[in-house]
């Protein structure tokens, strides 16, 4: 009951912020439109709609980190949180209350991204459904990054880190905009050690029907998501204590 009440509050806080919606849904769709327009004029394999859509979906998920991070960081510095800390809520209630409303939002955002892609020429197939499912661990990953950042930093810092740094980092290192092999070297190695390119590649493998390629990439994403989620819970618990001193 506590978790569902708190989760409902969090979804209302996020959905009633129009800027959140504009960025979370609008920006990835604009990029999708833009790249499709480029593809129409100068065909590039990388920007083919079935290839680019998983990348744009992952890029869109980076905004989920911004939502969750901003909400927690703002809450932490408010008297409202003091009220909740005094209430019978436990740390696990807080974390689940923040995570649960974001997961359907992230999935919905991914679905909207694919619907837009279908409108732009993506062939309808069961692989789309598979790609959406495959992207769920990525959604958890970005939610966890937001929880971690929101637990450690203040809202201005979260704006910078999740809003600017993470969206760029996840975009450049995901192989969405350019083939990582074109840069190669250390850049490619770093990209392969991070989860973003694996998230996109898992989605691309699902779209291409290369089912055996999905799990190796997904392991990276699930591993990062699990570790960051545990770190976020720990950071939230520690910061909750220090914020009240």
């Amino acid at each position, binding site marked *: *009951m*506590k978790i*569902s*009440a*708190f989760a*409902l*509050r969090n979804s*209302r*806080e996020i959905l*009633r*912020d129009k800027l959140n919606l504009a960025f979370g849904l609008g920006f990835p769709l604009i990029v999708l439109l833009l790249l499709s327009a480029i593809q129409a004029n100068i065909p590039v394999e990388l920007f083919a709609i079935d290839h680019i859509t998983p990348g744009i979906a992952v890029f869109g998920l980076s905004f989920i980190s911004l939502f969750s991070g901003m909400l927690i960081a703002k809450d932490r510095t*408010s*008297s*409202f949180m*003091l*009220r*909740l*800390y*005094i*209430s*019978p*809520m436990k740390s696990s209630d807080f974390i689940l209350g923040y995570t649960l409303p974001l997961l359907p939002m992230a999935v919905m955002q991914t679905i909207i991204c694919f619907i837009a892609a279908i409108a732009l020429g993506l062939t309808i197939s069961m692989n789309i459904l598979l790609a959406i499912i495959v992207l769920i661990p990525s959604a958890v990953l970005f939610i966890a990054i937001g929880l971690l950042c929101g637990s450690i930093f203040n809202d201005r810092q979260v704006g910078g880190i999740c809003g600017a740094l993470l969206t760029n980092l996840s975009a450049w290192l995901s192989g969405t905009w350019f083939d990582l092999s074109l840069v190669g070297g250390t850049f490619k190695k770093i990209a392969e050690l991070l989860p973003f390119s694996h998230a996109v590649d898992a989605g691309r493998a699902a779209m291409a029907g290369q089912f055996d390629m999905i799990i190796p990439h997904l392991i990276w994403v699930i591993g990062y998501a699990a570790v960051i989620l545990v770190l976020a819970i720990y950071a939230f618990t520690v910061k909750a*204590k220090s914020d*009240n*001193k």
Partner: protein
Amino acid sequence: MTAIRTENLTKKFKGITAVNNLNMEIMENELFALLGVNGAGKTTTIKMLSCLIKPSEGDGYIFGKSITKDSYNIKPIINVSPQETAVAPNLTVMENLELIARIYGNDKNSSLVKTKNIIASFGLGEVQKQKAKILSGGYQRRLSIAMALISEPKLLFLDEPTLGLDVLARRELWKVIKKLKENMTIILTTHYLEEAVALSDRIGIMVKGELKIIGTSAEITRKANAANFEDAFIYISESEAV
């Protein structure tokens, strides 16, 4: 029945003693005002008693339950109205109240009933569907206190409840607080001395982390040999702070 009892309650932050050996007893349905200049240790005391931070030494008991060992059972019977207005800004008045009712274990129906009742008793009816962030300061403060009361606490901490309110809004809140003290124990912190005198049964004055005096406003004024309570407060605060 004793609502609060502290035994050598102490809190130290990196070697600095914020609250030192606090010993006091507050009875059920008493309105107790905790006064002191900034940095006297009032907020730290309240944070310990509301199980927000753990004491460095000593213990406190809320209706017989230890704040160090039994916070899980204390939390459902206490609530707080923080100094700053503590509301969820994008939620309406009704949604804010329902949220707190449900966090304290009420189901959807009983939360709704309690919300409607408290909206009526706090005069929030005309703004019940407005988002908290667009309410006036007076309404926000009323909502904040209503959110603390919807859980029907046995012990309520009111931290500077009338800070920043105009005189009319303040007097309105005084009426509300006077009504509340018939049914619950209230710990009030305020910088408005006339507020403490008008509302409280007893007053405690903290200076540099220590509770220097405790009694009714008349007793404190008499003990300090002062013409009025304000003079008594200044005398106690200054003489002990030097």
